[in-house]
């Protein structure tokens, strides 16, 4: 091609504005993966610089890891639910009630193994109950979440009362080692495999993207959503076990507010809480670590915990804005 014809083609081609270029970057398939990781790295470097290297101390890193463990497990679990477009923020209270049931089982039997099994089973059953309300009874997920979190927290208060239920301290601390890391790695690996390597994950994302279309292509949406809640339930139960062995007791307020923390972690991890094709199951873990780094870093540079909440709110809104497509009209969703 000659220089003149190349120049003519160049003149005819549309000029890209800055907004177009930003949209191109945002719509790149790797953006949801790279952006949260880049932000995590940026925050890490920022706080290392601001604290003069104190932030990289072993105790601090271990603290971050321990704090993000429970939220990360829960966020990995709810990725299965969020993928289908169901927003369930009652998972924190479901985890709380599972912990209470486990602790009561320990009180009755004196066995930590029973406590672990009952907590796991409790998590699964409670999430299946939520699923039945959403999928079989057709109640909108947001409404289910509101009712479920209120009922679960009230039941926790009724069952626990004023004094927390204690579990065996030595065994709890022992379980914090190999059991915790092993079970988490097993669960996380299984989630990764199922979500990104099997038809289940593809079906979940398809349903989240367009449920009607998914059903018309022969996908059993009810069955797939039950599977998603089942895996979420296992994660909720596991997080409940981690929560119980971390503190060696269960108070009536356990899990309160964690549902929104999980949502925050999911969004910060780069996943839409309304599911779809760009969903992934590791976003929650990245988000949970990011939130913990943000909290810990701000605390270490002397920001008060009250201000940290405000900063988290602003960061949350900013990231959601950057991660979502701007609609021509106002976004709305029928809630009931």
């Amino acid at each position, binding site marked *: 091609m000659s220089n003149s014809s190349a120049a003519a083609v160049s003149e005819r081609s549309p000029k890209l504005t800055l907004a177009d270029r930003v949209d191109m970057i945002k719509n790149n398939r790797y953006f949801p993966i790279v952006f949260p990781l880049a932000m995590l790295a940026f925050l890490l470097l920022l706080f290392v610089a601001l604290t003069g290297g104190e932030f990289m101390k072993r105790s601090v890193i271990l603290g971050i890891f321990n704090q993000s463990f429970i939220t990360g497990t829960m966020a990995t679990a709810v990725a299965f639910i969020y993928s289908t477009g169901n927003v369930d923020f009652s998972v924190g209270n479901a985890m709380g009630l599972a912990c209470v049931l486990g602790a009561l089982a320990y009180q009755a039997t004196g066995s930590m193994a029973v406590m672990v099994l009952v907590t796991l089973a409790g998590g699964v059953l409670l999430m299946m109950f939520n699923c039945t309300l959403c999928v079989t009874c057709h109640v909108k997920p947001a409404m289910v979440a509101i*009712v479920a979190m209120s009922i679960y927290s009230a039941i926790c208060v009724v069952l626990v009362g004023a004094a927390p239920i204690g579990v065996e301290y030595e065994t709890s601390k022992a379980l914090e080692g190999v059991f915790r890391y092993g079970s988490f790695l097993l669960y996380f690996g299984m989630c990764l495999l199922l979500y990104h390597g099997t038809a289940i994950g593809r079906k979940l994302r398809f349903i989240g993207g367009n449920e009607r279309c998914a059903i018309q292509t022969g996908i059993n949406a009810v069955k797939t959503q039950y599977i998603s809640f089942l895996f979420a339930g296992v994660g909720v139960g596991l997080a409940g076990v981690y929560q119980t062995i971390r503190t060696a007791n269960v108070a009536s307020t356990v899990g*309160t507010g964690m549902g929104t923390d999980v949502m925050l972690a999911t*969004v910060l991890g780069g996943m839409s809480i*309304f599911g779809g094709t760009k969903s992934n199951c590791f976003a929650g873990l990245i988000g949970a670590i990011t939130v913990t780094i943000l909290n810990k870093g701000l605390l270490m540079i002397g920001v008060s915990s009250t201000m940290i909440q*405000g900063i988290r709110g602003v960061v949350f809104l900013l990231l959601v804005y950057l991660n979502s497509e701007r609609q021509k009209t106002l*976004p*709305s969703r029928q809630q009931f």
Partner: protein
Amino acid sequence: MMKSSNSKDMVSRAAKAVAVPLMVWAIMQVIDMVFAGMGVINNSADIKTLFRNLISSLAFALAIGANLNCGRMDLSLGAQMYAGVIFGGNLALMLNAGGIGVLILSMAVGALCGLATGFIFINLRILPMVLGLGMTLVFECICFAINNQQGVILYGKPGVEILSNITFIVIVTAAIVLFAYYFFQLSGYGFKYRAIQGSQKLASDAGINIYSNCVICYVIAGTLAACAGVFITIYQGNLTPVLGMSSNGRVFSNMFPMVLGTWIGGLCHNREGGILMGAVTVNIIILGLTKLGLSNSVQNVIIYALFLTFVVYNTNRSKIDYYKARRARVAQAQKLMAQREAAH
């Protein structure tokens, strides 16, 4: 003839609206008489408690419904309530403006919070529930930071006793319902609001400014939430700021009156009147459960279990109606066949 049919229609609608709280009162009355040996409403203190709780749950339910009916769930309403009452209440106390001053200034600050939320919503255009979570974090932080984390204390403050006066509460309750009815049903704004409720896209294409309508809706919601907050505060004596999205609990606890009220509103073709009746119904249940000597937690379990049952019924009502109609058709057909066989 026409007039008579209209008045009959009005009476029928009013009867439908009142029937639900009356039925619930009758049921609770029987339960309380059997298990506690006393009625739901025994003395003037019970009436006072009922009205005090009614006004706060009514105002909050109307605030939630304002946005929810357009598909926007604003979870930051609880935090807006805290911000409105803490800022407005303290300002009014500083100015010695008395109870009415507390109410007006709190509502004004609530309106400002709603304006800020609405303005951010129409500009960022992120999902309302997600925006609500972010705004809750921000508002709670602001509330906690001011007044040395003390919130607002109305107990023992001069001039605020009017807020506990039953006559004043009844007047404000009536004013809220009439204002909401006029604003959402009779005014030009309400006409556009209902058009948007039907289809946002069509309303926008028809020339309705969906953005200003939305911001006004947020302002009204913030104002009503702050109004509810003032009566909650005067009942408790103070309002302490909260963190960690605890303010969302206020939204969740007032969802039942809102959802039940919307259903009653559908029966009597008057959403605001329906929400009033929904709030009355839920508060009668709460009062009845209190008479049984149940703890708050047990009461919550019962209330939310009832809420859940109602939501499941409401969502699947059309299916239930369909199965009822089918059963009636089958029964009619069987009867007809039996008659034919008998004739032969």
